[in-house]
């Protein structure tokens, strides 16, 4: 089975973000960008599936590189985890919409022979929607999202889809198909730097020219403003040492009829 994993970078979730001078995008200049955590789960689930099956599956990670993140490092880390092929699509404009990402990935994948596409269920920048459904439509194959486990049974993908309130359901999906991965069935593995270094020596990154692909935006919407949440009703902050703060918390609880 050939599995393709399109991946994107997002602002590091621990970063403080600020609007740019136009107030229509985040200020990307001083922001750290990392692999979208849901894409990391997609990689993990693909590697787990390959290991469990042990039938020589091939995993390809296809990364969009807008120059703001260390994409080489991300790809070599994926190789150290068990990914077989590394592809970089470079010179991507910053602040790419999911519409454009779907067009680019779709036109790349349409020319390759894959059985399944695993992608993160969402990214922090999915203002115009999520990737899996768009890719499913563009590639004219089934898709299903919010997936937390992937197995293969009788030539079909057997996936676990999560609903609200902890309810899940099993679906059988014909290949080729696109899966939006919510979480891998095990936490993404840690790989030591020594393994990543070894991967750097053993793996090649294939370069794909954006000019050879479709990067159409499709129907979109115009950002008129990006701003921080209005902080009208923020919490009343409790100052002081941890001991003082704790004493005050206990007092506040008591005022609310919550004795300890």
């Amino acid at each position, binding site marked *: 089975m050939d599995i393709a994993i399109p991946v994107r970078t997002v602002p590091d*979730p621990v970063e*403080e973000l600020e609007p740019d001078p136009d107030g229509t995008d*985040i200020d990307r200049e001083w922001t750290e960008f990392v692999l979208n955590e849901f894409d990391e789960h997609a990689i993990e689930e693909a590697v787990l599936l390959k290991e469990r099956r042990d039938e020589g599956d091939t995993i390809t990670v296809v990364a969009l590189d807008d120059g703001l993140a260390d994409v080489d490092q991300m790809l070599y880390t994926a190789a150290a985890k068990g990914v077989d092929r590394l592809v970089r699509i470079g010179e991507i404009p910053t602040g790419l919409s999911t519409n454009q990402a*779907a067009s680019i990935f779709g036109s790349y994948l349409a020319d390759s022979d894959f059985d399944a596409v695993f992608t993160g*269920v969402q990214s*922090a920048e999915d*203002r*115009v*929607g*999520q*990737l*899996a*459904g*768009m890719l499913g*439509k*563009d590639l004219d194959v*089934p*898709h*299903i*999202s*919010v997936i937390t486990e992937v197995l293969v049974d009788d030539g079909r993908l*057997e996936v676990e889809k999560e*609903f*609200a*309130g*902890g*309810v*899940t*359901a*099993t*679906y*059988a999906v014909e290949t080729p*198909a696109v899966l*939006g991965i919510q*979480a891998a069935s*095990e936490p993404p593995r840690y790989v030591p730097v020594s393994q990543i270094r070894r991967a750097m020596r053993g793996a090649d990154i294939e370069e794909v020219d954006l000019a050879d692909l479709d990067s159409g935006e499709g*129907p*979109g*919407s*115009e*950002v*008129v*403003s*990006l*701003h*921080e*949440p209005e902080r009208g009703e*923020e*919490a*009343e*902050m*409790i100052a002081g040492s941890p*001991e003082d*703060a*704790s*004493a005050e*918390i206990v007092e506040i*609880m008591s005022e*609310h*009829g919550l004795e300890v």
Partner: protein
Amino acid sequence: MSDVYAVTEHQAPEALDGVSYELLNAGRAAADGLGSDLVAVVLGADTDPYLDELGVADRVVAVEDDSLGEFNPLAYASAVETVVEEADPRLLLTSVTSIGMDVSPRVARSTDRPLVSYVTDIDVEGDGVVASSQLYGGKMFVDSSIGNENAILAVSRGAFEADGGREAGTPEVEELAVEPAAAGVEFVERHEPEAGDVDITREDRLLAVGRGIEDEENLPMAEDAAAAMGAALASSRPLTDNGWLPKNRQVGKSGKTVTPDLYIAAGISGAPEHIEGMKDADLIIAINTDEEAPIFDYADYGVAGDLFEVLPALQDQAE
């Protein structure tokens, strides 16, 4: 046509999900602003059980087909596409849920309409529409103008009150036939959540820990603090994803919705998915090293501090 269509959802065979009424509430306001009708779209093998509380809508489009009994991404997307093609709605409203996230992007692509997702507010000015989305884990709001174009808005759960969209009564029902289009994806079986040791939805006091706990080894410290406070231990998603706590302890969009008397959030930044599950707790106290963390916008009281210092101090104080 220039009406507002709201796509309702159901997991259970007997009633619509509460999020459907949130969507109808959002849709009612948008339709009133645009001077148009609000139409509830109901999909199912048999839609009768879902029609009793749609009084807030002006009309109902009922789409019945055997392929729409259990949720199927292809059958649902195809049915909604048919609705869009037949009715050409001014706004098609969907939900950012497991169902909606499968339907909206595919339909947007196939009907060539702009989609704005994670919408928490819809502002109608004249015939123009601006949708506000909460992105970057709740850190930023982005206002998107769709002008007077027909568009799809995927609305975040919890952004509108369900009560405002739930009204007894069934308006005029129009039936719409669709071609079955489920081929490629087959529903196999549903799994209800395991009961587990603790039902956090029934606990009066919860101490919830998030990414800030850093390591599984640190959980006993939080458990001790919770015990001293008479609280059960709950968590945000990363901890259950890591297998550090069972799934039944998870609060939020894909976990449980809780309304305890006391909710202490320690080391939880306050992503919208988490907020959705706990914002209606009576007393919310947040502990986080990042003073700018969104959780402080939802908490009644906050401590800008390290949970590794505050929780043991709180335990001492309680004991």
